[in-house]
């Protein structure tokens, strides 16, 4: 059985790097991996996503609907945008951060009653799909690591503790050290560690995790 992760976010949040780190760790672990990545037009504050599949029987670069084990959303709204890919009862790990697109803001300008969508509304919708929704304050954890751009690695830290996550921690650490730019290796390793820690406080109360 393959382990299928649907990664999503907004252009510029480092999804491609995150994909490289996981993929490179798969090489070290001797695992098969295949992805379907969508960027290009979408790098301009548009939505971006990567289907990341680990395992011998993952043939298609796209995850079938209702089959992903995990959705990682580096921006909160994007978790909801792609929820059809998640299996019922799957895991959603989403950023607390919302980046309101200009089209939403322009509605608020036109209509004084209009309001921004909130993280609570999103979470309550997602809970109709799965009870396993964990909200992560990616930006402040990244800040703590000393690198605002390390939100992606924080999330990698979070999912790496899942019981079913198919890659050993040491392979991910090695991969981070090889893939991220030299000057930010230390910060990313720290972000990874902080992500792991935070998962034991939240995510692991919902789903089973690896023993510490």
């Amino acid at each position, binding site marked *: 059985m393959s382990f299928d992760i649907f990664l999503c976010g907004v*252009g510029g949040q480092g999804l491609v790097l995150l994909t*490289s780190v996981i*993929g*490179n760790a*798969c*090489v070290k672990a001797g695992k*098969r*991996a*295949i*992805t*379907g*990545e*969508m*960027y*290009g*037009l*979408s*790098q*301009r*504050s*548009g*939505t971006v996503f990567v289907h990341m599949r680990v395992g011998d*029987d*993952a*043939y*298609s*670069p*796209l*995850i*079938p*609907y*209702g089959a992903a084990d995990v959705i990682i959303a580096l921006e909160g*709204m*994007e978790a*909801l*945008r792609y*929820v*059809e890919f998640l299996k019922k009862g799957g895991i959603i790990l989403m950023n607390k951060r919302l*980046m*309101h*697109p*200009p*089209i*939403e*803001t*322009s*509605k608020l*300008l036109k209509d004084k009653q209009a*309001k*921004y*969508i909130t993280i609570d*509304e*999103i979470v309550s*919708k*997602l809970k*109709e*799909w799965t009870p396993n929704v964990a909200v992560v304050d990616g930006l402040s954890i990244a800040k703590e690591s000393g690198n*605002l751009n390390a939100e992606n690695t924080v999330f990698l830290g979070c999912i790496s503790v899942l019981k079913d996550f198919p890659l050993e921690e040491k392979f991910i650490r090695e991969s981070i050290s*090889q*893939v991220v730019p030299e000057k930010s290796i230390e910060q990313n390793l720290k972000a990874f560690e902080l992500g792991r820690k935070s998962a034991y406080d939240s995510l692991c109360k919902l789903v089973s995790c690896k023993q510490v």
Partner: protein
Amino acid sequence: MVLRDVVANEKRNAFMLCNEAIVRGALESDVKVVAFYPGAPTSEVLDTFNDAVGSFDYHMEIATNEKVALEICAGASFAGIRSLTAMKSVGTNVASDALFVLGYTGVRGGLVLVMADDPHAHSSQSEQDGRFFAPNAYIPMLEPSTAQEAKDMVKRAFEISERHRVPVIVRTVTRVNHQSGIVRLDGIDRKEFRRVKWRELNEEFTTLGEGARQKKLKMLKRAEELATEFESSEFNYVRDAPSDFGIITSSVSYLYVLEALKILGLESKAKVLKLGTTYPLPKNLIRTFIKGLAKVLIVEELSPYLEREVYALAKDTNPAVTIYGKWSGTFSEAWEYNPNLVVKGIAAALGMSAPDYDSIVDDAKKLKVALPDRYPTFCAGCPHRGTWAALSQALKNKPHYFSNDIGCYSMWIYPPISHADSSLCMGASVGVANGLSNVIEERVVAVVGDSTFYHAAIPAIMNAVHNGNKFTLIILDNSVTAMTGQQPNFSTDFTAGWRQGKKVSIENICRAIGIEFVEIVDSYDAKKNIDVFKRALDFDGLSIVISRRECALYGDRNKRRKGEAIIPFYIDTEQCKKAYVCMRDFYCPCYSIDETDKKPRIAQEQCDGCSVCSKLCPFVAVKRTEVKP
């Protein structure tokens, strides 16, 4: 992207984007000349070669357009040098004039053309099916499904090209180019680059009249030889099963078929013929495959290219076989496929039930009612936003036709701006403006980017000069080809491999061909530029405004390299009188409204410090931060 893996002279596994695997395959084949014009989904082939220049001795050019890129490769190949180009499907339209004759003249050194179709028009203006170029031009074509296969095929393509002295197309689709996977690296064994003595080669590459007629005969013979060779190609294979149901497929659809068979529990209950050489097709292999079948399903995206052939072959081989595909209504010619669609198609052909994917999607849709759309938009600091701020003011109360083109500024056609009367293909904004300017009452305004100007707009501009056509052309010069990933072009100080390059002056070209109204503005001077645009619109003749300011993403990269800080702006809420001029028609992604005081806010971590919004505010409430937070 992990460049280390692409350039490592090691034999091991690596995780790679297919486009990187294509580069790796070419390097392992000792390619010596590469030339490109960027275009999704192949741009990373260019980018990877661009980054790897320092490690090897190949010559690389980022060319004016795809036709020039292919001709550069042809030139090298005539001299016996291996060359490669990659382009998006619509790029092949531009290159096709050269491509068709190369089928006649042939080549000497291996020439590989990677052509990427874009089913679903993810980042293209059409869903055109480029496969038809191959039979039309008698040029062999290979189609990979995975990154590993793409690398293998590129290597084999060089050999085929040299053996049969013909360019070889490696045809991909977006879901192959933008697929990563585990790729086996072979060693890189490169010979030193040496100039060739042309006179010693004793070659000619001409075709015309009687010469073309003779070469046509040779070309037909070559196609026959290729067909024979491809019958036993390792890229075509059968996954056998004790069944009278078979599937014929290629490209990424093969992977969807494998996934679908797994989902349906049919892995050992359907035969599969995977085709890797899709021109010329291995007809005997297909005949043998369909011989004993009761049903055959063709799974391919876009046009019924394979399906047509299967119908033709079945007529003699197995007229009783029922063929499922597009003509049976099982699959559509529109849009890309995915595992779910293929599950449905296989189930329909077999008359069995499939998982109810529609209800999954419907359930999800219900949850998304309040979810705002997120269209691609201009980046924070994008000069096109500044240009639009002024241009939209100048166009107010001025009846006009807006002729848009292909580049980041294409996004003016998306909400919330939604402004364009037409947008076709690169350079067409100017060609169309020529036509319209003589038949409509309103003023025609056309826009092109710098890269598009060089690529395809110059002939249409000269046409306007010569014929006295009157319209306004705005040239959006942001120094790079931004849309496809900020590659250098002739308006950049750099060229391939970030070597110093000579800029080709847009204004000098415009003036030299006799245009009287040529003005240059800074895209960030949103207020000042309104008047310039107004004068250009009122000018009785062809008027050109060059709106110049480097792409924000490219500028940020330069700043980071030089160690310069990006200093964001903020809203001084004391000063703010809620005029919303900074954001109403400006749509910067940094902006949001505070729901308590209803005043604008700027996300500090997103702001690029471009200053344009601050110039729009009549109350000077948008201010630059003193120190970087």
